[in-house]
């Protein structure tokens, strides 16, 4: 699955996107965050405060607990600040 990171989350993790094969028990964005945190201190730092993390599944805003099914792309980012 393609995973994307934006803004300070991208800076803390140290990359903007990566292609990862997820274990079958990871089925929601929140589950994916838990799994990513265990991959390294950069992920743990980026995802330290889940209250500041938003996500999009296949380019649509999505709740962290909504199962992503067969999605191709998940993005994590801080609350948006456009306009």
């Amino acid at each position, binding site marked *: 699955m393609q995973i*994307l990171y934006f803004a300070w989350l991208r800076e803390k993790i140290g990359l903007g996107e990566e292609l990862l094969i997820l274990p079958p028990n990871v089925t929601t964005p929140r589950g994916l965050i838990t799994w990513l945190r265990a991959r390294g201190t950069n992920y743990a730092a980026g995802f330290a405060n889940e209250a500041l993390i938003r996500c999009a599944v296949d*380019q649509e805003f999505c709740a962290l607990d909504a199962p992503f099914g067969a999605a191709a792309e998940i993005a994590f980012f801080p*609350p*948006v*600040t*456009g*306009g």
Partner: protein
Amino acid sequence: MNLRIAVQEADFDATAELAALSAGAGGIASFIGVVRGNVGGKTLAALRLEHYPGMTEKALEHLADAAAARWALTGCTIIHRIGRLTPGQNIVLVATASQHRAAALEATAYLIDQLKTAAPFWKAEEFADGTQAWVAARPEDDTAAAAW
């Protein structure tokens, strides 16, 4: 409805954009966001705008569609700039046209409120003293967007 959505580094020509909305309209309302020169008492050198290519355009189209479903619009233009912008430069143009003023004025206010919370843009501030910081989302923006 005459719909124009653009996410670009280049500046926009507001006069030309508004003129393009006049066909079939009785009024055109617009909002232009510009880079402030001062934030919290600190002098700003520049604002950097990052976005999620692909999703951003879709999110802006969703917002325009939602506005068109709610107000009788003859046209809608949303242009959002990205990249590094300096104080006084344009960030965003929202303009809507309708037969009567209320629809255009309300739809423009609606769109700028929604744009702050429902489109994947992020701002980082570069200050004149060399420090920089990502802009935090403001709870009052969520409140304003939800009030519609």
